[in-house]
C-alpha cells in the first residue's frame, strides 16, 4: 500500500539499512536503493509516498534524482539527508519540492517524526468526488464589477487556484510544524485559508531577503547593468493586516523615487485576500484599523459557511472572477452571515490599544525621554527577529559580491533592520544608535509615528508576529504604546493611494564618470576630480552629496567639494577610512567610477543670499563647506560680509593648503584658522576651533552661520555661537550619517523620522530641536 511506503536512497549500506530497520520497526513499508539510478528504476515501476534521499550520491546526484522524480511522480514527498549541508543545495532541493532536511548522522526520532508529519499532510490528499451538489440558483453573474460583493461556492477556489497555477506561480499559506507559512502551492489541498497568522509575512514576495540590483564588471564604472527580476505570481489567502502592510510598501516604493525592482514585482502580483476569522492571540489588528480592508487586493474572500463572499477589488480581480468563478448576487442572508462572521472574529481579539491610534505620534513624541525605553530594552538581544518578521519593515543593506575571477559581480540588497547593532554605523566607526535603548525606541517610533507621518499609513498593522518571535518578550509595539500614557491630539495623515507609476529603471544604477585628476591633501586624504562620460554636468547644489561606486567593493556617500559654478567637472575630497574610500584612494587618473546623485538638500542658498556669512569648518568638514566657499566667492556680490573659520587637529592635517593661503590674502573674505596642537613650524593660532569664535565681530541680526565638522564639534561650537546671540533659525549644520541608498528607502541614515539623504544632510538648528537623535 502506497500510504505508508518509503524509499530510502543512500550509497552507504549502514545508513540505508539502519534507516530501513528503524522505519520498519515504526510500521512503514520500506524499500532501499543504493544509487540514484536504482531509485529511479524502482520509482518507475512502483509508487511511494515518501523518499528519503542522500543528496551526495555517486553517479546521478540527489538533485538530479529530485528533478526526475518531480517530473515522473510529483506527489512523492522527498526528505533530504546529507552530511554536507550547504545553503545552495538546500535552496535548490527546496525549489525541487524537497520537504525538509536532516543532517547525518540522522537521529531516528527526528526522521520518523518528519515522515509522520509529511504523511499526515499527504493523508489529506483528495479522493475524487463525483457527487454534484444541486441547490437553487440565484441569478448568475455575467459581468463582474470592481468594488462589488458576490457569492461563490467554496469549492470554486480550487478552479481559481488551479487555473492561476497554469499561468503563474501560486503561493499561499501552508501548515508546517503546527505553524503557518507562505510557500509555493503545488496542489490545492495544501492551501490553508483558515489560519491565525503566518510566521513570515507575504511581503517577502515583493521584497525578497536578497535580490540583485545590478550586474557589473568589477572596477569598471561604465559596465553596469540594472537587474530586475520579477515573475507573475498570485498570493492567495492574504489577511487584511498584511494587505495594509503591502499598501504601505506600495507607498514607500512606488511614490517618491519609484523603485524599479519593487514595481516590476508588484505589478505582476495578484493578491487574493481572505478575512481573518481566527486571529492570533498576539494580534491587535482592530486597534490599528487593519482587521478589515476595502482596498489593496484583487479579490477578497469571507468564509460564510458553504460559500465565500467575494469582494472584487480591481480590474484584474474582476477579470479573474469572470473567467474562473461561478458567482451570484448575495442574498440578504449572505450579507447577514458575512456581518456575523466578522463580528464574531472581532470579539476574539484579546488585545487592544488604550488610546486611538491617531494619538500615537504625539504621545510618543512627548515621551521620547521616558525611562521605559532604557528599562524595557535591557533584555533585548538585538537579534533582529522582530524586524525580520515584520510586514511593515523594509529597510535594507546593499553589498557587492564578485566572482572568484574577480571580474564579474553583482550588487545586491539584503534585508536589514534598525535593531541590529551596526545598522547606523558609518565608515569612520561612529555608531549613531549604539545602545539597545535608542535602537528599541527607534523601532517603536517607526511603528507608531515616523511611518505614519511620512507615508500617511500606519507603521504597525497589529499582526502580532514580532511579539511571537521575540524571545525576550519585549517586541510588541502594542505593549510599548500602551505603556506610554499621555493625552494629545494627532493629525490625521492624508491617505494617498498609489497605483499607476512608472519607475526610473536607473534608480540604483550609477552613471560612469572618469577620474580626470587626483591629488594628495594629506597621507589620509585626497581630492578627486571627475567628469561624466556622457559629458553632462553633475548639477549639484553646494552641500549635496553623491553615492560613489567602485563596483566589486561597494558604494559610499561622499559630499561634493566643488561649487557648481566650476563647470563640467566636480571634485570629491575623500578620507581613506573604509572599503570604498580605500579603493578610491588606489585609483589612478583615467579610472571609471560610478556616480549616483546628487542627493540631499544642500545649503539653503536662498536663505543665505543677501546675508553676512559666518562659515565654520572643523577638519574634513571643510570638504563639503568648500563647495559653499567657492560658490560664495564666485557670486561675491550676492552676499554681505563673509567670515571663514577653519580648525585642524595639527599643522600636518591642514587641507587644501593653496586655497587656505589664497583665502588668507583675499580681501573678499575674512579668514581665520587654528590648530588644536601646534608644532615648531606653526606660527599661527593654537587652540580648538571654538577659541576663534569670540575673536570675530558679527551682527547677529544679519548673519547666517554654517557649521560643518565631526559630530563632537557641534555641541561646543553651537554653545559658543549662542553666546553671540544667534537665533537657531540662523545656525545651519550639515550632518554625517550612513547614507546607503540615497533615495529615502534603506533606512540607514534616518534621524528619528527624517531621512538625511532626502531631507538633509543640511539642517537649521531650529529643525534639529525636533530631531533628538541629531547631535
Amino acid at each position, binding site marked *: 500500500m502506497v500510504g505508508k511506503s518509503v524509499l530510502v536512497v543512500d550509497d552507504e549500506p549502514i545508513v540505508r539499512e539502519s534507516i530501513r530497520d528503524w522505519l520498519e520497526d515504526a510500521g512503514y513499508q520500506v524499500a532501499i536503493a543504493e544509487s540514484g539510478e536504482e531509485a529511479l528504476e524502482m520509482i518507475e515501476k512502483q509508487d511511494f509516498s515518501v523518499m528519503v534521499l542522500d543528496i551526495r550520491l555517486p553517479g546521478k546526484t540527489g538533485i538530479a534524482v529530485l528533478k526526475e522524480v518531480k517530473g515522473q511522480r510529483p506527489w512523492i514527498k522527498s526528505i533530504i539527508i546529507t552530511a554536507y549541508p550547504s545553503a545552495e543545495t538546500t535552496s535548490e532541493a527546496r525549489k525541487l519540492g524537497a520537504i*525538509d532536511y*536532516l543532517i547525518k548522522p540522522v537521529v531516528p526520532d*527526528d526522521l520518523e517524526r*518528519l515522515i509522520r508529519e509529511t504523511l499526515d499532510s499527504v493523508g489529506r490528499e483528495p479522493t475524487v468526488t463525483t457527487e454534484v451538489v444541486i441547490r437553487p440558483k440565484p441569478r448568475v453573474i455575467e459581468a463582474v464589477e470592481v468594488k462589488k460583493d458576490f457569492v461563490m461556492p467554496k469549492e470554486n477556489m480550487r478552479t481559481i487556484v488551479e487555473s492561476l497555477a497554469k499561468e503563474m506561480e501560486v503561493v499561499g499559506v501552508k501548515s508546517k510544524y503546527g505553524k503557518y507559512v507562505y510557500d509555493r502551492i503545488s496542489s490545492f489541498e495544501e492551501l490553508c485559508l483558515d489560519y491565525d497568522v503566518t510566521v513570515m509575512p507575504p511581503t517577502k514576495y515583493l521584497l525578497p531577503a536578497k535580490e540583485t540590483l545590478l550586474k557589473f564588471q568589477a572596477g569598471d564604472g561604465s559596465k553596469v547593468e540594472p537587474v530586475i527580476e520579477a515573475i507573475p505570481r498570485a498570493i492567495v489567502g492574504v489577511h487584511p493586516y498584511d494587505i495594509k502592510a503591502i499598501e504601505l510598501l506600495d507607498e514607500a516604493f512606488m511614490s517618491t523615487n519609484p523603485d524599479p525592482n519593487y514595481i516590476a514585482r508588484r505589478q505582476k502580483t495578484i493578491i487574493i485576500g481572505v478575512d481573518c476569522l481566527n486571529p492570533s492571540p498576539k494580534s491587535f489588528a482592530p486597534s490599528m484599523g487593519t482587521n478589515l480592508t476595502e482596498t489593496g487586493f484583487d479579490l477578497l474572500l469571507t468564509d460564510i459557511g458553504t460559500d465565500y463572499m467575494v469582494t472584487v477589488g480591481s480590474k484584474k480581480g474582476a477579470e479573474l472572477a469572470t473567467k474562473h468563478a461561478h458567482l451570484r448576487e448575495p442574498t440578504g442572508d449572505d450579507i447577514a452571515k458575512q456581518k456575523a462572521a466578522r463580528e464574531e472574529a472581532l470579539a476574539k481579539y484579546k488585545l487592544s490599544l488604550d488610546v486611538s491610534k491617531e494619538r500615537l505620534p504625539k504621545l510618543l513624541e512627548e515621551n521620547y525621554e521616558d525611562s521605559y525605553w532604557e528599562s524595557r530594552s535591557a533584555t533585548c*538581544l538585538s537579534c533582529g527577529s522582530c524586524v525580520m518578521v515584520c510586514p511593515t519593515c523594509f529597510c535594507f543593506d546593499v553589498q557587492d559580491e564578485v566572482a572568484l*575571477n*574577480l571580474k564579474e559581480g553583482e550588487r545586491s540588497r539584503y534585508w536589514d533592520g534598525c535593531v541590529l547593532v551596526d545598522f547606523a554605523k558609518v565608515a569612520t566607526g561612529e555608531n549613531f544608535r549604539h545602545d539597545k535603548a535608542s535602537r528599541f525606541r527607534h523601532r517603536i517610533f517607526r511603528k507608531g509615528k515616523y511611518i505614519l507621518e511620512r507615508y500617511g499609513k500606519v507603521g504597525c498593522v497589529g499582526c502580532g508576529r514580532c511579539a511571537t518571535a521575540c524571545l525576550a518578550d519585549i517586541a510588541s509595539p502594542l505593549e510599548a504604546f500602551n505603556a506610554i500614557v499621555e493625552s494629545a491630539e494627532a493629525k490625521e495623515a492624508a491617505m494617498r493611494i498609489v497605483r499607476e507609476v512608472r519607475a526610473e529603471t536607473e534608480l540604483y544604477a550609477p552613471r560612469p564618470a572618469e577620474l580626470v585628476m587626483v591629488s594628495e591633501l594629506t597621507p589620509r586624504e585626497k581630492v578627486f576630480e571627475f567628469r561624466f562620460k556622457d559629458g553632462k554636468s553633475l548639477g549639484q547644489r553646494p552641500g549635496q552629496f553623491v553615492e560613489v561606486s567602485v563596483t*566589486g*567593493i561597494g558604494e559610499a556617500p561622499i559630499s561634493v567639494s566643488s561649487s557648481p559654478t566650476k563647470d563640467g567637472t566636480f571634485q570629491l575630497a575623500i578620507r581613506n577610512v573604509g572599503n570604498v574610500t580605500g579603493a578610491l584612494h588606489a585609483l589612478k587618473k583615467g579610472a571609471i567610477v560610478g556616480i549616483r546623485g546628487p542627493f540631499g538638500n544642500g545649503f539653503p542658498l536662498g536663505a543665505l543670499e543677501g546675508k553676512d556669512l559666518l562659515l565654520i569648518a572643523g577638519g574634513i568638514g571643510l570638504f563639503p563647506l568648500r563647495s559653499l566657499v567657492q560658490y560664495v566667492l564666485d557670486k561675491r556680490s550676492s552676499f554681505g560680509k563673509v567670515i571663514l573659520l577653519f580648525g585642524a587637529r595639527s599643522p600636518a592635517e591642514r587641507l587644501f593648503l593653496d586655497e587656505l593661503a589664497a583665502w588668507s590674502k583675499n580681501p573678499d573674505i575674512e579668514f581665520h584658522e587654528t590648530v588644536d596642537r601646534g608644532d615648531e613650524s606653526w606660527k599661527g593660532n593654537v587652540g580648538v576651533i571654538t577659541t576663534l569664535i569670540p575673536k570675530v565681530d558679527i551682527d547677529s541680526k544679519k548673519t547666517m552661520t554654517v557649521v560643518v565638522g565631526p559630530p563632537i564639534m557641534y555641541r561646543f561650537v553651537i554653545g559658543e555661537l549662542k553666546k553671540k546671540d544667534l537665533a537657531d533659525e540662523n545656525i545651519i549644520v550639515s550632518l554625517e550619517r550612513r547614507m546607503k541608498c540615497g533615495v529615502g528607502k534603506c533606512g540607514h541614515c534616518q534621524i528619528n523620522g527624517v531621512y538625511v539623504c532626502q531631507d538633509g544632510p543640511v539642517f537649521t538648528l531650529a529643525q534639529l530641536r525636533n530631531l533628538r537623535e541629531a547631535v
Partner: protein
Amino acid sequence: MKPKVAFFDFTSCEGCQLDALNLTAEELISLLNAVDIVNFREVMTERADNYDIAFVEGSITRESEIPRLQNIRDRAKVVVALGACACIGGVNCLKNHLPVDAALRIVYGKDARYYDTIPARPIDALIKVDYYVRGCPPITAELLKVVKALLLGKKPEIPNYPVCTECKMAGNICVFERGMTCLGPVIRAGCGAICVTSGRHCWGCRGLVDDPNLDSEKDILQKYGLTVEKVVEKFKIYNTYAEVTK
C-alpha cells in the same frame, strides 16, 4: 604576482582544511588562477616558507605550538583564523574546565607524564589576527568571500548580528517554538542559519556577536526549561573560552 597562500594546522581535526577545498572543479580552478597555494599539508607535499596569506586552523594547546604560531605571524602579511578552534578556541577548550593534570590523566592514563599540555586557547590569544573565517567547519562561501575581499583589498562584510536574523531570512520556524532551545540569539550569523534550516538548532560554532546579551539569553534558556547546568553546558561546547576561560 599572485598572492602566496599557506595553510597551517594546530590542535584540530583538520576538518576545516579538508572542507576549505571542498569546491566545485570550476571554483577550484578559479581559485588557483587567483592565488598560489604554497603550503597545504592536507592536499600537497611541497612546502614553502614564503607566503603572504596564512590560514591557520586549530587552537593552541601545547607550549611548543606558541613559537611556531609566532613564526607564522612574523612571516605572513595577513593571518586568517580558519574555523572554530582557531577563532574562538572551539571544542578543545572543553578541557579547560579541568586542571591540566587531570585532563592529561584522563586522556593518556599512565602515559600522561610523556605529554605536555596547557589550557587551550584561540590563536588571537597569542597573535594578532587580521580576519576570521568562523564555523565548525566554515561555510565555503564565506571562506571564498574572505579570499575575494583580501584579493580586492576590501574588508569582508561579515555579519555582526545574531543567527536569528538569517534564520528568519531563511523562513525557518523558531527552534524555541518547536520545543527545543538554541544559541542563535547570541551567536554571530553568516552561516545562513544552516543548522536550524536543516532541522536542528544553533550550537554556537561561530562564536558570540560583538556585544551579546548573554544574561538575557540565559534567562530565556531557563524560561524554556533548561537548568543552570544545562545552560552552561550548551555554551561550553564551542564557547568555553569566551565564557569561562577569559
